[in-house]
């Protein structure tokens, strides 16, 4: 089992990269050096009335400099607090958490929707095989420059303002794309569509799930999902998203 650490990370820089979407680089002691694409960190609020850590996916890892990038959307009071943190400030984090994406050498789709897009960036950097990025946005784009440096992404927007009008599945069909393996992270309806597509085409498919969490380390059983196999922990077909996940074989989980 990979080691986890609790650290006080220092904010290297933070910026709003799209409306309500923030990018934060954190200097860590050991977490970045041990992190893998698809894992997440728990971030703790300074405000004492907010008890639970916020699980946020890792967007980029700079192992040499022990730095991590997270890209998150302001969705409530906790993320609003994070968005106001300034360079040089510190924040308690725990990580790296969860299993991460398995790196395989097959021709891959990397499919991301909305705030599920960020973890695909580090994955794209580490997947050395042939890959196609399909990114779905509601309207305004983010992280495009970073992805373009790796390979030109196919983009879908719901309002048609950029790329394919519609969702990621529309972009795959419109461009006649094919793959042998899928990695996906995004909203549940998107993941359902991706799972159905993978089943129809009979290709390997890995999806990253999210759920409300409390402890983030596998103890509280707050964030389970229904699994085909019995889980090793409780033996009742409930895998812990924070521990056995967040990345699962699509056919392994019901969501």
């Amino acid at each position: 089992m990979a080691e986890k650490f609790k650290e006080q990370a220092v904010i290297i820089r933070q910026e709003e990269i799209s409306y309500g979407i923030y990018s934060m680089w954190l200097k860590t002691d050991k977490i970045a050096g041990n992190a893998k694409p698809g894992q997440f960190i728990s971030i703790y609020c300074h405000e004492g009335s907010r008890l639970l850590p916020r699980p946020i996916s890792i967007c980029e890892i700079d192992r040499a400099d022990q730095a991590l990038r997270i890209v998150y959307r302001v969705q409530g009071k906790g993320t609003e607090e994070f968005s106001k943190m300034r360079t040089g400030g510190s924040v308690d984090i725990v990580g790296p958490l969860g299993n991460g994406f398995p790196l395989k050498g097959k021709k891959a789709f990397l499919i991301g929707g909305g705030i599920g897009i960020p973890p695909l960036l580090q994955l794209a950097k580490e997947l050395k095989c042939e890959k196609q990025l399909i990114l779905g946005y509601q309207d305004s784009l983010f992280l495009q420059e970073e992805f373009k440096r790796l390979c030109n992404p196919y983009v879908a927007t719901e309002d048609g303002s950029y790329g394919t009008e519609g969702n990621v599945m529309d972009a795959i069909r419109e461009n006649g794309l094919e793959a042998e393996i899928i990695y996906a992270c995004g909203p549940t309806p998107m993941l359902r569509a991706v799972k159905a597509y993978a089943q129809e085409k009979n290709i390997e498919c890995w999806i990253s799930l999210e759920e409300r969490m409390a402890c983030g380390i596998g103890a509280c059983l707050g964030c389970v999902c229904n699994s085909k196999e019995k889980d090793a922990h409780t033996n009742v077909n409930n895998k812990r998203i924070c521990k056995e996940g967040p990345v699962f074989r699509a056919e392994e989980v019901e969501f």
Partner: protein
Amino acid sequence: MITEVNLAGVKLKNPVMTASGTFGSGKEFSEFTDLNMLGAVVTKGVANKPWVGNPTPRVAETYGGMLNAVGLQNPGIDLFVERDIPYLAKFDTRIIVNVCGRTTEDYCEVVQRLASQPVDMLEINISCPNVEEGGIAFGQSAKAVEAITKEIKKYAKQPVIMKLSPNVTDISEMAKAAEAGGADALSLINTITGMKIDIHKRKFALANKTGGLSGPAIHPVAVRMVYQAAQAVKIPIIGMGGIMTAEDAIEMILAGASAVSVGTANFRNPQVTMEIVQGIREYMEEYNVENINELVGAVE
């Protein structure tokens, strides 16, 4: 300085334990906390068979607190005895197993299975608000509390702690009933039933609609109930409910608790239990307290 406390004949090196359900069986938290430093580890509730628990979302944050409706998902006594007890037995800490059930027979079956195990105490959960049968149903009438305590005592080989619900009109009546049934100690409080609604989606925050409120928001209620129960019974009380710091733990002890359990605070800081142990020592030093037991119920 003496921090050792005695709970119904069981000696704990210090009064700090973990609240059931927040700490699993210790394994996950052992990556952050030295279990050897704790007075006891109280495990997540275990039933006679595996329980699948409630649908998600199971947790929601509230102001200064959280709601949970996990629904006592657990692996059942077989896997627990095979895996969790041997794991905990490696540490120099006391093992308190929390027991849950749907019927009196369920509870008794688990208690019997634990009789031959290297377990120090049993904590009987008759106060879970998140399961339809059992749980809280046993904890809301004095007669039922006394009856189930008596039944369990027939089979228990270890001292029995009854975990009481705060969702009652008169906690001292429940405390007395457990004592009359033969309980060796009491744990209180379990969570307070609550509800949260997402006003943007007009949906319940929890799939179960209601959940148990825990965290600092409930701490004053817990202190009050521990005080009232301590006035009503002679058996030792384990105080819990929103303990986040050593100061909160001391407050609970002054109200009448012989030991304390730390729950939701583990989610805010996975090392908090060790920090509370240390903080209690610092308080004792500052106030020249030679023996922690001097503080039990010492509020004037």
